[in-house]
């Protein structure tokens, strides 16, 4: 009996080693099923999965669409509970440190060591823990710029602003004709609606100046010089009525676009797929959008920043067999040319550096933005994006900032007092 047990153990160990050895080199005809959670379900379900199935036809990938906030809330609960997580998920950079701290994600360091230099350093740092282990594969990058309506700028003779002073001047000019420059909701509500609106705006403006919400020790620094400058810019836009008081993504917001009353949107590379999904042909907005680099705070200053961007992560609780399938999907999507091409075509700027110089990717255009080669500009901005700290407390300070924004925008508090109060609350 003992001998049989020993033989069995040896066989099991050999089998296991065999499995390990072939992990990553998954047979193309492997059968299996995968589940994933994401808010960018159109991208994954309608673009990437079909492309993936051309290579692995027998792996069925089910995508559960969820709202942006909900996806992360559910992942947090699933990790804390130890079960209930999908096989893999898209996780935004704001939240990934939290899940790493919870110990819920699979270590990807070995896998990524085979792809050295293929992803921007700041992206890998965002998914790393203190010891340098990386827990997610960078999926898409989100370099920020100014999406603007070329037709409105031409109509009113507005030059592309190079600094924020010029941007405000352009806003004042447009106001005379009843046109808004960007939108800032004075009372931005649910986080998922504002994270890519008001709170996100303040974040990337602060990041653009190489500022941060946290210092090196991880303590909040919400009233830093850079944060105040960013908030002052937003407060000016609101107080002078230059920015429309509508919530990003609301029906009123798109109506302003259709009426040609919204001239610019400061947002990231992925905004192209928002435009494509919401603006229909026949709208005057269609085909008239262009992308330009962010204005600088000071002449010659940084014109690069980031807003969002996600990673693909596998959960510790995912069974080994499914984890291998998930790895195949992630591998295809993030580190093959075909996967990255499809991803870029959907309208998200992939984080894989080799794709940025691929002629097909560089020459991609969208009817929404005429003949502009968006990926070319994104690739220019991405290497210049300043680092940005997003420790586990990041979403908490975002919420505190959001609450203080209303006080500042309606004039109950000055920018200094509003941020000082927010800092006091965050440091509590």
């Amino acid at each position, binding site marked *: 009996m003992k001998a049989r047990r020993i033989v069995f153990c040896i066989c099991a160990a050999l089998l296991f080693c065999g499995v390990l050895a072939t992990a990553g080199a998954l047979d193309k005809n492997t059968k299996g099923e995968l589940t994933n959670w994401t808010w960018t379900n159109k991208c994954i379900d309608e673009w990437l999965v079909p492309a993936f199935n051309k290579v692995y036809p027998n792996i069925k990938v089910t995508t559960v669409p969820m709202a942006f906030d909900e996806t992360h809330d559910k992942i947090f609960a699933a990790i804390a509970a130890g079960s209930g997580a999908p096989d893999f998920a898209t996780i935004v950079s704001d939240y990934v440190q939290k899940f790493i701290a919870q110990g819920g994600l699979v270590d990807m360091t070995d896998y990524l060591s085979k792809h050295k230099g293929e992803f921007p350093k700041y992206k890998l740092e965002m998914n790393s823990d203190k010891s340098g282990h990386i827990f997610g594969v960078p999926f898409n990058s989100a370099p920020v710029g100014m999406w603007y309506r070329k037709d409105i700028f031409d109509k009113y003779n507005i030059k592309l602003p190079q600094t924020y002073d010029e941007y405000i001047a352009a806003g004042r000019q447009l106001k005379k004709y009843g046109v808004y420059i960007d939108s800032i909701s004075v*009372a931005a509500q649910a*986080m998922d609606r504002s994270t890519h609106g008001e709170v996100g705006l303040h974040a990337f403006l602060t990041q653009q100046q190489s500022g941060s919400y946290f210092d090196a020790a991880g303590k909040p620094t919400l009233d830093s010089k850079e944060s105040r400058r960013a908030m002052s810019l937003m407060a000016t836009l609101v107080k002078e009525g230059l920015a429309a008081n509508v919530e990003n993504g609301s*029906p009123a917001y798109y109506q302003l676009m259709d009426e040609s009353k919204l001239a610019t949107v400061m947002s990231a590379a992925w905004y192209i797929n928002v435009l494509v999904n919401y603006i229909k042909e026949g709208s005057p907005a269609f085909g008239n959008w262009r992308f330009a680099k962010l204005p600088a705070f000071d002449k010659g200053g940084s014109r690069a920043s980031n807003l969002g961007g996600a990673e693909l992560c596998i959960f510790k609780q995912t069974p080994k067999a499914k984890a291998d399938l998930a790895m195949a999907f992630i591998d295809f999507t993030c580190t093959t040319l075909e996967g990255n091409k499809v991803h870029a075509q959907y309208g998200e700027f992939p984080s894989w550096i080799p794709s940025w110089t691929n002629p097909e990717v560089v020459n991609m255009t969208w009817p929404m933005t005429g003949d502009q080669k968006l990926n070319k500009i994104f690739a220019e901005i991405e290497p210049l994006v300043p680092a940005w700290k997003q420790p586990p*407390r990041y979403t908490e300070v975002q919420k505190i900032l*959001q609450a203080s924004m209303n006080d500042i925008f309606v004039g109950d508090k000055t920018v200094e007092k509003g941020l000082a109060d927010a800092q006091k609350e965050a440091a509590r």
Partner: protein
Amino acid sequence: MKRRGLAHEIRRNAHAYVFIAPFFLIFAVFGLYPIVYSFILSFYTWNANEPWVFVAFKNYHDLLLNDTVFWISLWNVLYIYLINVPPMILLGVIIAVALNSPYQRFKDFFRVTYLIPYVTSVLSIAIVFFVVFDDSRGLVNLLLGRMGLSPVHWLTAKKMSKISIDILVTWKWLGYNMIIALAGLQSIDTQVYDASKIDGAGTIRTFFRITLPLLRPVIAFQFIMATIGTFTMFTEPYILTDGGPGYSSLTLVLYLYRSAFKFFKLGYGAGIAFLTFIVILIPAAIQVRLYAERDRSYTAT
């Protein structure tokens, strides 16, 4: 005789205990266990990364002495309660009396219509009200504009956010309160009304001297239910305003949810839960006392 006590009692009435057991089992698993777990958690710090850290009363100390947001949310809930509950219950009684009147036509139609908001999901109502109360394109402001009035910032002004929530809550719960009052009314013997009419009482006097006092137990029940419901309000502020602008419509439970699941301060959230429990307990206990005592003095048959 006392010796044979509990075990004997259970065996004698085994079938009865079997019938009532399911409720207690379910309560024990889904009610009691989470409550006890939560209570214990409130004495620890836990952020779902690391193990629980015992901090004794630190959470309660921080909440009561260091946390302005907690007090703001408590005040918000009180404000929402005072503006909404007493008028709504009174209005419910008045409408019930009107619907109970023999002169009222189409009673059933009205009763159904008033009850429809109650059976509609609060989530869908909140989403619709969110659109209706929109600053620039909402129905209400458009109508105000047509009438020549300036638009109101229903959800985007600190002064209005709680009032807008109250409007939603009243719209939803008025029908329910009315039906409860109606049921109470119909349990009042008509002979009492006949007697009062003979004594020469008019409608108003009948209402205040006969109807309301006899409805006291029903109204007491409504107040207690409304207290619990208002102080634990979550969905309406979550959908309509997410506690904003600023913290103007943040309720206790919304703050709890945010602390526990957005800020990952689960022990802190548990502390808020227990403080909420105490906050509800006080007025509820007072109300039970008040009405129970009064009831005892009502030995009318």
